[in-house]
């Protein structure tokens, strides 16, 4: 054990060598810290209270709408049709063709270069474009039977780490050393999986990393099917 202790210590010493803290570390840290007020300003309660209040208002608003509609049910039929308030809420995203989605995205996303889209999505699949702006988009491709889904987006994702059956690798996709490929459950051939990479280029919303942050995720696809689509982005 003593021999191992020495070896471990030596390994850590080698690892730490060359990164010694500056001689002024203590003075600098203490000066910076003690210049701050000590009492911890905690406004979390305010945020929670605001969130609760907002939630109550939303629920009350929805309930009042439903109650108002119930109240009108026994009334005499209205001669002229009027729009239901619920019809004026957010329109549902429309399913369009893959080609139409490509055109829509390429026309709208002008703050990211390059704009990449997969060419290997079968034309028979449908597409749904959401979060469309000058700097980002999310497109969801769905197979005709709904069993397979592919999502491509320009965004900085924050998916959960893999579980016990998951796996991660750094595929150096498009030369990006930060790229990450994760399979949630490698015991399932068509497990949910995703690929994150920064495409060399420019983005109007820099996030501290070079290039454009792309996020490709799929469900119902095998590894080779996924990579066929990933390698077709251009």
């Amino acid at each position: 054990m003593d021999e191992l202790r020495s070896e471990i210590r030596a390994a850590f010493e080698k690892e730490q060598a060359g990164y010694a803290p500056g001689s002024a570390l203590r003075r600098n840290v203490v000066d910076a810290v003690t210049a701050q007020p000590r009492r911890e300003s905690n406004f979390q309660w305010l945020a929670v209270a605001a969130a609760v209040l907002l939630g109550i208002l939303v629920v009350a608003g929805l309930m009042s709408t439903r109650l108002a509609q119930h109240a009108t049910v026994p009334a005499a039929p209205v001669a002229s049709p009027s729009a239901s308030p619920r019809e004026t809420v957010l329109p549902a995203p429309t399913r369009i063709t893959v080609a139409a989605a490509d055109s829509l995205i390429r026309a709208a996303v002008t703050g990211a270069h390059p704009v990449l889209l997969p060419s290997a999505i079968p034309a028979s699949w449908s597409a749904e474009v959401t979060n469309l702006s000058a700097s980002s988009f999310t497109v969801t491709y769905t197979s005709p039977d709904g069993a397979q889904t592919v999502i491509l987006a320009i965004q900085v994702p924050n998916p959960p780490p893999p579980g016990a059956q998951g796996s991660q690798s750094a595929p150096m996709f498009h030369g990006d050393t930060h790229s990450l490929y994760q399979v949630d459950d490698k015991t399932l051939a068509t497990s949910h999986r995703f690929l994150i990479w920064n495409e060399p280029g420019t983005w109007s919303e820099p996030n501290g990393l070079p290039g454009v942050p792309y996020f490709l995720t799929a469900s119902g696809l095998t590894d080779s099917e996924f990579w066929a689509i990933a390698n077709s982005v251009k």
Partner: protein
Amino acid sequence: VLQDLAMSRAEAGEADFDALIGPHLEAGYRTALAILRDPDHAHDAVQESAFKAWRKLHQLREGRPARPWFLAIVANQCRSERRGRWWSVIRVPEVDSVAHEVHTDSIDISRGLANLPREDRLALFLHFYLDLPLEEVGAVLGISAGGAKTRVYRAAKKLRPGLEMD
């Protein structure tokens, strides 16, 4: 008089902090470096940990030892940082760049340490490099001294499978 009293309290606070936490800042930096393996991030983590320690200094005055208390804050800060930038590639110091003058066993140990689970590696670092007693290792890791002993032994056994505990 009130102004003088306020001033003396502020000075006392600074002196307290320097006396209590100052001696452990280097250990905090080295712990952060062992976890994050990036000197810039380690500096940031220590600075942020020091801010947290400053704001919670009253907890320390309840009779808790300063070193494990502060190192636990550092370890938690590093865990948070790693979670916050989980996608980034961690830069590992170029241990292999001087491999020509390193014994083969040392290379194996270095590689073994690099491949250990984070908490196992931290336990070995605290016990074998910083020479913290098991009680303090446990306090930093949030486990008992017995748990710390088991973790250190198991981590060491992963590096040397035939290892027998003293």
